[in-house]
């Protein structure tokens, strides 16, 4: 059928585009966006969560800085870090030291861990001309304390960015940004839901590059590509295979190489949930567009943020129950704990999460990766054996 061929072609075109953007370490689209009109600026942010609404509302293009991945040779970055620090900050420094981040007028460093926190101070020392801001995420969920604290930070960042841009952000500017981000999150959720229902139709290697691209392009462009991709995947679902359904968790900050994602899927697993690029869906609820925009953003953070290693778990049972809840929601057969080497948040959480999962009889395996891991044989064997064991003995 002619229509199907078009859709296949459209789909592969989108994936190729996304892969090109995701692997573009010079951030070409962001640079083009800035160059298109005088006065345009971009604001980078490190993982895991930064309030893109505030960046957009102050007129900046939000650009996620998620490391250099497997294609960046680290020459200068290693001179800044000891061997026992994770790989992400090395490649971020490498990107910066090679001029690839020189288009950023501002960079936000969220309180993901002490490495990213300290990187904010390093940035202040190395790039004094750039606006650098450390963002302490609210760890207490009472509105009077954590809510107020977070709102003050949002207001302060907004003021600073507006001052940098020489403009004033009206409440409607923020509301428009909130609406756009709501739409983006809804679309990401839709993609995740579609993959959960038809993982054979939406392989994670495609979904991942689409979402990685989304981190560095204007939101409207992502929405256009994502909708087209969903439509194409609907028309051309692909053959369903006998694979195990797994959740991959622990890779919310330093990202796995694409080869690792492909390896897991080709070893007999359908990834039906993950925490890659978690910031794009950190808020699980729509932020209301009425009322005071900063109040609404702060409230959404307190009441609607995703369970994550970077936020304190206030419920005593929370850690033990989390994986079971995720497994049930995704109808998964097992869990792959995949954390970056030396990733404190993921590795300190792992014993609690795994104990909870295993107490509920959920099959689990664990390994560590680095964003520039190049050898996948061991992962293939582990994931393959895991998938086989689930098929043979799962549910017993």
């Amino acid at each position: 059928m002619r229509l199907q061929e078009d859709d296949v072609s459209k789909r592969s075109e989108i994936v190729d585009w996304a892969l090109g953007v995701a692997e573009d370490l010079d951030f070409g689209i962001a640079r083009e966006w800035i160059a298109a009109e005088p006065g345009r600026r971009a604001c980078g942010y490190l993982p895991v969560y930064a309030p893109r609404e505030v960046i957009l509302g102050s007129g900046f293009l939000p650009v996620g800085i998620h490391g250099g991945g497997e294609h960046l040779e680290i020459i200068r970055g290693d001179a800044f870090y000891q061997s026992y620090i994770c790989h992400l900050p090395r490649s971020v420094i490498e990107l910066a030291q090679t001029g690839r981040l020189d288009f950023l007028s501002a960079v936000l460093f969220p309180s993901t861990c002490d490495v990213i926190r300290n990187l904010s101070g390093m940035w202040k020392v190395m790039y004094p001309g750039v606006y650098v801001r450390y963002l302490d995420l609210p760890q207490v969920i009472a509105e009077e304390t954590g809510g107020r604290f977070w709102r003050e930070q949002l207001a302060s960042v907004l003021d600073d960015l507006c001052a940098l841009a020489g403009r004033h952000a009206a409440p409607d500017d923020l509301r428009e940004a909130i609406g756009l981000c709501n739409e983006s999150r809804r679309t990401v959720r839709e993609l995740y839901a579609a993959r959960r229902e038809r993982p054979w139709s939406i392989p994670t290697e495609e979904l991942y590059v689409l979402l990685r691209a989304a981190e560095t392009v204007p939101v409207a462009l992502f929405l256009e590509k994502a909708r087209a991709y969903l439509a194409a995947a609907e028309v051309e679902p692909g053959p369903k295979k006998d694979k195990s359904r797994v959740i991959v968790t622990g890779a919310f900050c330093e990202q796995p190489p694409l080869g690792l994602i492909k390896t897991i899927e080709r070893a007999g697993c359908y990834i039906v949930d993950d925490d890659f690029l978690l910031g794009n869906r950190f808020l699980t609820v729509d932020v209301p567009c009425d009322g005071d925009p900063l109040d609404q953003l702060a409230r959404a953070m307190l009441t609607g943020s995703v369970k994550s290693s970077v936020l304190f778990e206030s419920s005593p049972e929370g850690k033990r129950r989390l994986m079971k809840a995720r497994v049930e929601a995704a109808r998964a057969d097992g869990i792959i704990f995949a954390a970056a080497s030396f990733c404190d948040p993921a590795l300190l959480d792992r014993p609690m999460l795994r104990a909870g999962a295993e107490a509920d009889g959920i099959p689990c395996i664990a390994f560590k990766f680095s964003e520039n891991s190049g050898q996948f044989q061991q992962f293939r064997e582990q994931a393959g054996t895991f998938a086989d064991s689930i098929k043979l003995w799962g549910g017993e």
Partner: protein
Amino acid sequence: MRAASKDRSMELQKQMIADHYKRLEEAPATGEPVVYTFVPGNLTELVRSFGALPVLPEINALQSGMRGKSGEYIAAAERAGHSEDVCTYVKCDIGMLASGNIGPTGTRLPKPDLLLLSYTGCYTFMKWFELLREQYQCPIVFLQVPYQGEGMIAPEHRAFVVKQIEDDLIPALERISSRKYDEERLKDALRLSASSEDDLVAVLESAKKRPSPIDAYFGAVYYVGPIFSAFRGTPEGREYYRSLREEVEERIRLGLGPVTPEGPLDDQKYRLVIEGPPNWTSFRQFWKMFSDERAVVVASTYTKVGGVYDRGFRHDAGDPLGTLADYCCGCYTNLNLPSRIDLLLDYIREYEADGFLINSVKSCNSFSAGQLLMLREVEKRSGIPGAFIESDLVDPRYFSAANIKNRLESYLQMLEARRAATP
């Protein structure tokens, strides 16, 4: 040659610690509530004003390291699924718990009635107490202390901490102790704290003398012990610091240096500033490497993790909760990297140091991430070369004596050559 005899302050500290752990052991019987918390941002005065006893897991871990127990504790934790990549203080604590929870003095530690998660300058603290909560099934209070990302304590950050103390912490302490908050009692403790802090600062600043009467790293970790842990704001704590100050002033009067485990160090060849925590598993061996070379440490940042008192902060009984907030926000690990660089530069200048050294520990990203840039910045701005060595807090697998000794000796030789070349 002077003998390495025990000073009165050392005897006092030993007794204070023994008494405290005895009370902790007896707490289940006496009914004294027990609060686990952390050294940076510890609210000892407030906790004790409710009649509760503080337990500081980092202190237990470092003591386990010094007693040669940490290796087995860490191994026990790793066997239970904890990663080899993460903080060894945490694993040492988890392993100690799994091994019967016997504390540094050989007595059993009680279960906590409350985990006071003072989230000050270290991400791992959050996970540590989430892990302990799994073990103890007890209540937890999260006290978020904003990081000084902009190099200052913002008024709203101070208010945020005060509000949490009022809304969350005080009610929790009231519940576990069945006592009402008594502000006068807290104020009394804060006055004692300020007095001890005056004495501690006098002791630390004595290192500006030549010879320095103290070692401000290896020796000072003992000096800060009481004020960083259970004894700030107590009469015993004040007595300890009075005695210590008198002893140090006597050494100044006599022109003497500190007493190291190998004997007195009166003839001092190198004056150094050190950044980063020490290694605890080979602590004496580590110290000996310096004293063998007649190197004395005149200032260190590690001795500021429980409060940067030498920059002027004192607990203020006139504003009891506000001063606790200021204290939490001001601890060394809560300072941003530029502030840490400035502090090192100040120390080098004020203490007329010949050099500075960074001991980068694998376990602690809060300290270690960024230290190589700190090294370069301090070198650039001070004109003094620095040294960089690597070890760990309490994992004996990461202390390579030969490597560290080699680096230290090479560094000191370089300082010597530089000195000789300077007219």
